[in-house]
């Protein structure tokens, strides 16, 4: 037993990617066990290790945690990435829920019918540039600090960087109207643990391509 957290998921981003990011940012080494076939998922289910029969599941500190937000909240709190008090935590929660909504849209894009892709992509870019990014740009502008909340790296900063990079994969110049977010991106990417995660060979997963969509559909029967 290694004592390291162990992640159970497919070998792709999906809902596990934000968890990989947060562990990496916190400097926590982790192991991964990949679900490659329907049988792998069935085995986890029949072993009784998935509380609601779903993944992500993370073995951590003697628990088999499920539900993405529960896992992320636990990691954030444990590694002091959740602000210093209730009010800072409220702001972090609000910001994270916003980036979760945005990344959720991007995550489902490869799974949508081909004839709706263009429309959905346009909606993502619209939401990113008119609903979400302006909020974070303004937050950074108003307090003039390096991080979103409390002048200290938090889960919100890590999540925002992840969302920015995903949005840029959809449209490379998506940050053109957001100079502070551009600087934020540069700054947070240079934090040693995050810089390491952004290098080739890390446990960060690539964008989901058509081939992988087919694999996922088979495993989860969707």
């Amino acid at each position, binding site marked *: 037993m290694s004592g390291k957290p162990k992640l159970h998921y497919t070998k792709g981003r999906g809902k596990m990617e934000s968890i990989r990011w947060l562990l990496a940012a916190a400097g926590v080494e982790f192991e991964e066990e990949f679900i490659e076939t329907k049988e792998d998922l069935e085995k986890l289910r029949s072993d009784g290790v998935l509380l609601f029969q779903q993944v992500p599941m993370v073995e951590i500190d003697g*628990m088999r945690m499920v539900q993405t937000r529960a896992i992320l909240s636990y990691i954030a709190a444990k590694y002091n990435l959740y602000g210093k008090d209730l009010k800072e935590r409220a702001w972090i929660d609000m910001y994270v*829920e916003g980036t979760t909504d945005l990344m959720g849209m991007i995550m489902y894009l490869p799974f949508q019918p081909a004839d709706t892709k263009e429309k959905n992509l346009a909606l993502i870019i619209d939401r990113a540039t008119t609903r979400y990014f302006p909020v974070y740009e303004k937050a950074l502008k108003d307090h003039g600090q390096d991080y979103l909340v409390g002048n200290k790296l938090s889960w919100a900063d890590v999540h925002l960087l992840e969302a920015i990079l995903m949005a840029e994969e959809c449209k490379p110049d998506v940050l053109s109207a957001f100079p502070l977010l551009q600087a934020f991106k540069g700054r947070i990417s240079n934090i040693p643990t995050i810089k390491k995660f952004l290098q080739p060979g890390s446990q960060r997963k690539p964008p989901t391509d058509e081939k992988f969509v087919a694999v996922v559909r088979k495993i989860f029967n969707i």
Partner: protein
Amino acid sequence: MSGKPKLHYFNGRGRMEPIRWLLAAAGVEFDECFIEKKEDLTKLQNDGSLLFQQVPMVEIDGMKLVQTRAIMNYIAAKYNLCGKDLKERALIDMYVEGLFDLNELLMTYEILPADKKVQHFANMMDKAENRYFPVFEKVLKDHAKDFLVGNQLSRADVQLLEVILMADEYKPDMFSKFPFLQSFKARISAMPNIKKFLQPGSQRKPPSDDEVVDKVMKIFY
């Protein structure tokens, strides 16, 4: 200024209902400002009161909180409904997220067009009976205390009761095979703050009828 939290939403359950439940369970009085037409929503958006242009929004402790989970995390932590340590909180969070997923199924059913309702209903009941309620039945049985986690009321208990009652509205006989959930339901319903919330005249909202659904579609879509 009353000092009470102020809830901004339409006059129905939707995503605000779990928040009403949590405040009520914590014994916190609150005011409500109802969005009746599109112009009401637009005004809130133009005022800059909605961080992501969406409701629910709750004015509390000098903040305009948005995002259901952020709001509920704040209330739960403030009123000690999150367990006594990180591990209890982890368990509570897992249960609550499962309940949110089930609540989402129950909630979206109301606003679906008639031709999509039948299949959704079957899926929703299947998940309730085979994925979610068995988990909580087992937790109550194995943990063998009055509450889901530790030895005191938490947000998980409040949310489970809410979801039980919602499922009850659709299929009351579902619970015949969940005796521990039945006694849990009776026990938690009898707690003074919750008993009060369950009485007529409280701020608890009824299931949405066609008139409310119609209004919602006009405001948000």
